[in-house]
């Protein structure tokens, strides 16, 4: 177990370094010039060069990169070029917000996706099955920026149940409850795709589990269907489900960008999008690094959990 963890963490570090290099290289190619976009229409060439120099953007790439990576190793993520703020002071809150959103969506996709998949599997090829799978699939096949607006229109405008967008009330921002009310619609919108994936996945493994020999043995021993399903089979599909849910958690971190835009949720995705278009190197670097880190950690946790969940692999893990 320990060796396994050590190996994984080591590879994580390598991956992260790789990511930072990859991002750095890609971003060199983005047309956006942070200084230009900072100084706006009236910028003159001479001023631009002056600012570039002040920001050290006129140094050779490798120097810029090493300088940045050294900073990171000292816990300094650097300054945002366009917002002239410490990257951490902007990214940490946004990462938090994205995690809240992702968490909400994950909850939904667990509570709905797994049972949906199981029910579908119980009545394989039935109307229920086809129907629910079609719904799940349909959800994943709609452009979020369109569906999101429809959701807003119905639940925020027509019914007035939830706020249209944002994270806090505008006039008197509240605490947890306030966030919760604002969280509902975006997390539903963000949950659609993962729920679909999880439901289909759950259905798949459920079908498999139901055809397992031991299920027949249980039935032959007079174990009631209720127990067969909700005790034995559920336990059997737990590892694959946990696994897929873990993957979705990773996806949600970067995949909710459209939801963030439509519901004006101040998350990492939206921030990174603007930073990318503005070529704001330090922001993108740090942001992607965060996501990558969380991503890798989530995967690690998932793998360990799966390993622990299955008695057959528990020892090896």
């Amino acid at each position, binding site marked *: 177990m320990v060796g396994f963890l050590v190996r994984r963490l080591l*590879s994580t570090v*390598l*991956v*992260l370094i*790789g*990511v930072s290099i*990859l*991002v750095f290289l*890609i*971003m060199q*190619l*983005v*047309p*956006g010039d942070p200084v230009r976009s900072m100084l706006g229409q009236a910028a003159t060439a001479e001023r631009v060069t002056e600012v570039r120099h002040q920001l050290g953007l006129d140094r050779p790439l490798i120097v810029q990169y090493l300088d940045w990576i050294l900073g990171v190793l000292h816990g300094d993520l650097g300054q945002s070029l366009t917002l002239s703020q410490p990257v951490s002071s902007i990214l940490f809150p946004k990462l938090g917000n994205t995690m809240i959103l992702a968490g909400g969506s994950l909850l939904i996709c667990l509570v709905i996706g797994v049972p949906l998949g199981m029910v579908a599997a119980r009545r394989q090829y039935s109307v229920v099955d*086809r129907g629910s799978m*079609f719904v799940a*699939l*349909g959800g*994943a*096949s*709609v*452009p*979020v*920026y*369109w569906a999101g*607006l*429809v959701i807003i*229109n119905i639940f925020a*405008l027509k019914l007035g149940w939830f706020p249209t967008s944002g994270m806090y009330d505008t006039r008197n921002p509240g605490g947890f409850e306030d966030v919760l009310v604002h969280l509902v619609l975006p997390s539903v919108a963000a949950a659609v795709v993962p729920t679909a994936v999880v439901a289909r996945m759950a259905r798949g493994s459920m079908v498999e589990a139901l*055809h397992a020999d031991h299920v027949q043995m249980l039935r032959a021993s007079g174990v009631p269907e209720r127990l067969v399903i909700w005790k034995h089979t559920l336990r059997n599909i737990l590892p694959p489900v946990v696994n897929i849910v873990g993957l979705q958690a*990773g*996806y949600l*971190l*970067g*995949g909710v*960008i*459209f939801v963030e*835009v439509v519901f004006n949720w101040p998350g990492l*995705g939206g921030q*990174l*999008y603007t930073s*990318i*278009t503005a070529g704001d190197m330090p922001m*993108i670097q740090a942001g*992607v690094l965060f*996501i*990558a880190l969380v*991503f*890798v950690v989530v995967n690690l946790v998932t793998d360990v959990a799966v390993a622990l969940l299955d008695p057959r692999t528990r020892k090896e893990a």
Partner: protein
Amino acid sequence: MTTATLTQPAATAWRRRSQFRLATRALARDKVAVGALVVLTLVVLVAIFAPLISPYDPLVGDPTIRLLPPGTPGHLLGLDGQGRDILSRLIWGGRYSLSVAIVPVLCAGVVALVLGMVAGYFGGRWGELVMRVLDVVFAFPIVLFAIAIAAVLGPGLVNSMLAIGITLVPYMARVVYTATVQESGKDYVEAARAAGLTEVEILGKQLLPNVLSPLVVYATTLAGLVIVLAAGLSFLGVGITPPAPDWGVMTSDGRQVLLEGYAHVATIPGLMIFIVAIAFNLLGDGIRDALDPHKQTGSRN
């Protein structure tokens, strides 16, 4: 014993051919998959014959009459915010939306096939290297990756296809890699080697067909996701650019009037995306089931 194994390659070849026949037959029996296939073929045909079918110019309308509802005489699906005939744009739009869904998947598929098979079959240092590089990409959320690449290349049809293609390679390569590793463990490969086939022959004649089937399944499903992703890129302005009648573009500019009672402008193309995406997915499922020997014979065991 040896006599048995020597005939193995031939045997697998036969098994494969019959498998293929079985698969196609199973697919033909799957009503849903067939339906999906029909829908897709239809859309493709419409796109191909757009110049003949389309009642109006998709790019130039009469801006003095805007946002007419569906059912307007002469404009079956109404007019968009620029006074352009939505039906005509829908018809032409197939060309953009389909190519942006299919072309990248195909190209990425080929690249992935080479990468994945080489990495999976020869393994060793090269395999490791390739897979580690892919790991790096996986740590990068797919949407953001696509956006970044799109931002680098700039907007436009070709560029968005390129961006999406590049984004897909690692994901498809992983599928190929796993399949290759599994297959190359099987004894028919051993047998082929024993029978003195060259590596290239083994890769091409023995592995390829077996690796192909999971890839095909994955690719078909991907196409469904890609068409939605591409629409998203257009929405952010890093994808296909107006006035191109791409469905994604149409949906995103229709958004602006969605709350003002002109829902059809965004909804109709959105529906098209929805239908095509689902069709791809269902077809993918169909192919998967068809290739699954358990299900070919209908009832189990």
